[in-house]
C-alpha cells in the first residue's frame, strides 16, 4: 500500500498565502520552483533520511493546526541590546529600520532586499538551492523582507553587529526571516545572530541566511538561540568561503520547543578554513537537532567541529555531521567531535558522523562520546564539602566551557554564561 502523501505543505500555503506580501526580490522562476518543490516533496517527516529524528511534518500537524498569523508589532527591544554592538532588528521575518541602529560605519552597507538593484538581487538564492530542501523552498516562497549586509573589501569592523530576530504572535504563526551577508576581500567582521520568541502564540521560524566569505576575509559568527517553549525553528545557514577565507561559528541553543539547525559550509577554494562549534541544553520534551555539512571541494582546506549537548528529562538531542571530501580536495584536514551528557534515563541523543571521502591524501577524523555525569568527580567535590547540586553545576559548567570559551565577545559570553547557569 502506498502511504497517503501528507498535505501539510498545501495547508501551510493555503493558510499563509492570504497574509503574505508578494515580494519583488524573488524572481518568478524561483518562486514557482519553490512552490512546485513543496507540492511534490512536502514537509519532511521522519521517513526522510535528513529528518529522521526530527519529524517536522508531525510537528506541524500537532502544534500548528491553526496558523492564523496574528503577528504582534514590537516597539521596544532595548532590553535585548548589547552595549558594545550595532543592533539590527528583524521582527517576524521583516527587517525593522526603526528599531535598528543607524549603520554609520565605514565600509558597511545595509540594504533591504526590496531596495537592491537587479544584479544584487541575484545573490539571493545563489547559495541556497530551492530544490535541495523543503525549508529553503518554504522560505523562498514566503520570504520576509530581509536585508543584504555587505562589508566592503579591506574593511575590518571594530565592533560586532548584533542581529536580533524577534518573533511575536498571539496565534500560531509561521515567519521566514532571511538575509544575505557578504564579506569582501580581506574584510573582517563579527556577527551575532540572536533568536528570541516573545508573545503568547507559538511561532515557527524558518530562518535562512546566505553567507559569502570573500578572499582572505574572516567572518566570526555567533548564533544564540533562546526561544523558549513557544519557539519552533528551522535555521539554515548556507556558507561559502573563498581562497584563504575563514569562517567561525559558535551556536549556543539554550531553549526552544524545537530547534533544527542546518549549517552547510562550502569550502570552495584553496586554503580556506571553517570552524563550527555548538552547545545545546535541552529539557522537558524539547528537541535540538544540529545538522552540519562541511563540503570540501578544493585542496588544502581545514575544518573543525565541536558540538556538546546536555540532555535531560525526556528531551532529545541530535548531531549529524557530514564531511564531504571531493576528489579534488587533497590535503584536507577535517575533524569532528560530538560530546554529550545525558542527565536522565529518558533523555536521548542521536549522534552520527557521516564522512564521504573521495580524495586519497586527507586527514579526517571524528569522535563521539556520550555519558552520564562523572560520579568519581562528584564524589571528589562532595568530599570537599560541595553539595550534590553545586557539584553537578560545576561539572556541567566545566563541560560547557570548552564551547563557551570560543565566544570572544565578552558581553555576549557573560550573558550566555549567566543564562546557561540558570538553565542547569
Amino acid at each position, binding site marked *: 500500500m502506498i502511504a497517503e502523501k501528507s498535505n501539510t505543505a498545501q495547508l501551510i500555503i493555503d493558510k499563509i498565502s492570504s497574509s503574505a506580501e508578494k515580494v519583488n526580490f524573488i524572481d518568478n522562476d524561483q518562486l514557482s520552483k519553490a512552490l512546485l518543490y513543496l507540492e511534490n516533496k512536502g514537509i519532511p517527516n521522519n521517513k526522510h533520511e535528513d529528518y529522521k529524528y526530527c519529524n517536522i511534518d508531525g510537528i506541524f500537524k500537532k502544534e500548528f493546526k491553526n496558523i492564523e498569523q496574528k503577528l504582534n508589532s514590537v516597539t521596544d527591544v532595548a532590553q535585548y541590546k548589547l552595549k558594545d554592538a550595532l543592533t539590527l532588528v528583524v521582527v517576524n521575518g521583516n527587517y525593522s529600520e526603526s528599531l535598528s541602529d543607524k549603520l554609520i560605519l565605514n565600509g558597511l552597507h545595509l540594504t533591504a532586499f526590496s531596495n537592491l538593484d537587479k544584479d544584487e538581487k541575484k545573490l539571493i538564492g545563489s547559495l541556497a538551492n530551492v530544490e535541495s530542501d523543503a525549508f529553503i523552498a518554504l522560505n523562498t516562497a514566503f520570504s520576509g523582507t530581509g536585508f543584504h549586509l555587505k562589508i566592503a573589501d579591506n574593511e575590518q569592523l571594530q565592533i560586532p553587529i548584533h542581529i536580533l530576530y524577534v518573533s511575536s504572535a498571539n496565534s500560531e504563526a509561521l515567519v521566514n526571516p532571511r538575509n544575505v551577508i557578504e564579506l569582501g576581500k580581506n574584510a573582517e567582521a563579527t556577527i551575532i545572530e540572536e533568536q528570541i520568541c516573545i508573545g503568547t502564540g507559538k511561532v515557527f521560524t524558518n530562518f535562512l541566511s546566505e553567507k559569502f566569505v570573500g578572499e582572505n576575509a574572516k567572518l566570526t559568527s555567533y548564533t544564540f538561540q533562546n526561544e523558549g517553549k513557544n519557539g519552533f525553528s528551522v535555521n539554515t545557514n548556507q556558507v561559502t568561503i573563498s581562497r584563504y577565507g575563514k569562517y567561525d561559528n559558535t551556536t549556543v541553543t539554550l531553549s526552544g520547543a524545537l530547534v533544527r539547525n542546518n549549517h552547510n559550509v562550502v569550502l570552495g577554494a584553496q586554503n580556506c578554513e571553517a570552524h563550527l562549534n555548538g552547545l545545546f541544553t535541552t529539557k522537558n520534551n524539547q528537541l535540538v537537532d544540529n545538522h552540519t555539512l562541511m563540503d570540501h571541494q578544493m585542496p588544502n582546506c581545514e575544518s573543525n567541529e565541536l558540538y556538546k549537548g546536555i540532555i535531560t528529562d525526556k528531551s532529545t538531542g541530535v548531531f549529524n555531521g557530514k564531511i564531504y571530501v571531493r576528489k579534488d580536495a587533497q590535503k584536507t584536514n577535517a575533524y569532528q567531535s560530538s560530546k554529550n551528557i545525558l542527565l536522565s534515563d529518558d533523555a536521548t541523543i542521536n549522534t552520527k558522523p557521516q564522512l564521504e571521502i573521495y580524495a586519497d591524501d586527507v586527514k579526517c577524523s571524528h569522535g563521539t562520546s556520550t555519558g552520564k555525569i562523572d560520579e*568519581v568527580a562528584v564524589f571528589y*567535590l*562532595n568530599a*570537599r*564539602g*560541595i553539595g550534590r547540586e*553545586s557539584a553537578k553545576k560545576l*561539572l556541567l559548567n566545566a563541560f560547557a*566551557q570548552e564551547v563557551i570559551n570560543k565566544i570572544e565577545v565578552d558581553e555576549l559570553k557573560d550573558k550566555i554564561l549567566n543564562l546557561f547557569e540558570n538553565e542547569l
Partner: protein
Amino acid sequence: MITIKNLHASIGDKEILKGINLEIKAGEIHAIMGPNGSGKSTLASVLAGREDYEVTQGEVIFNGKNLLDLAAEDRAREGLFLAFQYPVEIPGVSNINFLKTALNEIRAYHGQEEMPAKDFLALVKEKQKLVELDGKLTNRSVNEGFSGGEKKRNEIFQMAMLNPKLAVLDETDSGLDIDALRIVATGVNALKSKENAFVVITHYQRLLDYIVPDFVHILYNGQIVRSGGKELALELEAKGYDEIKKQFESLEK
C-alpha cells in the same frame, strides 16, 4: 574526636572491613599501616562516604554525630577531610573556583557568611606557600596535567585551606620523591594543633620519620591486629609483615 566501633564494610559480596575499632582524640596523629589489600584505603573511603561501599555493621561517632548517617558533603562540612590516594582530575573547574565553592559551602553549613574575596585570596597565597605550590597551578583546572607530586601537594593545600578537624591521608606518600615528601610533611606538621587530628595511611616507615605518629596500628585482613607507639613502625620496617601474616594464619587454623 572520632570513635569507630566494630565497623564492617563490603563491596559487592566481598567483606573488606571485618570489625574495626579505633579511638582518636584531638591532638593525636595515628598511623595505619598494613600490607596491600588489608583494607586501609577502604577504611578511608568508608569514612569519607564513598557510596561504592556498604557498611554492614558498626558505628562511627564523629564529634558527637553519627558519621555514617551523613552525606559525604556533610561529613566534609563537619570537619572530616580525605586526602585522596588518587586525586581526581576535573578539567574545566579551576582550583580557585573549586576551593572557593568548597570553603563557602562549608561556611554556609555553619551559618557563616561567604568569605570576602580579598580574604580568600590572601588565604590562598598563605597556604600555597606552605606546600610550595606554584601560583600558576592554583589557577589551572583541578589536578589537570599535574604531576603525581603536584597532585599530592594540592591535596595538602586543599586541606590547609579547609582546615579540617580530622584529616585522613590515604597513602599521600606513594609516588613522592624525597623533596615532595618533606614538603607534604612540613605542611601537615604546620597544620597540626591541639584541636585537630590526623590519620596517616601508609605502607612505609619513611613518611613517619617526618610526621611522627603518637600511635601506629597494623591493619590486616580487615581488622586492626596490633597497635603500639611509633616504634611499632620501625619494627615493621625491619621485619616486614610476614610475622603478622604467620601469626594471623596460625590463628585461623
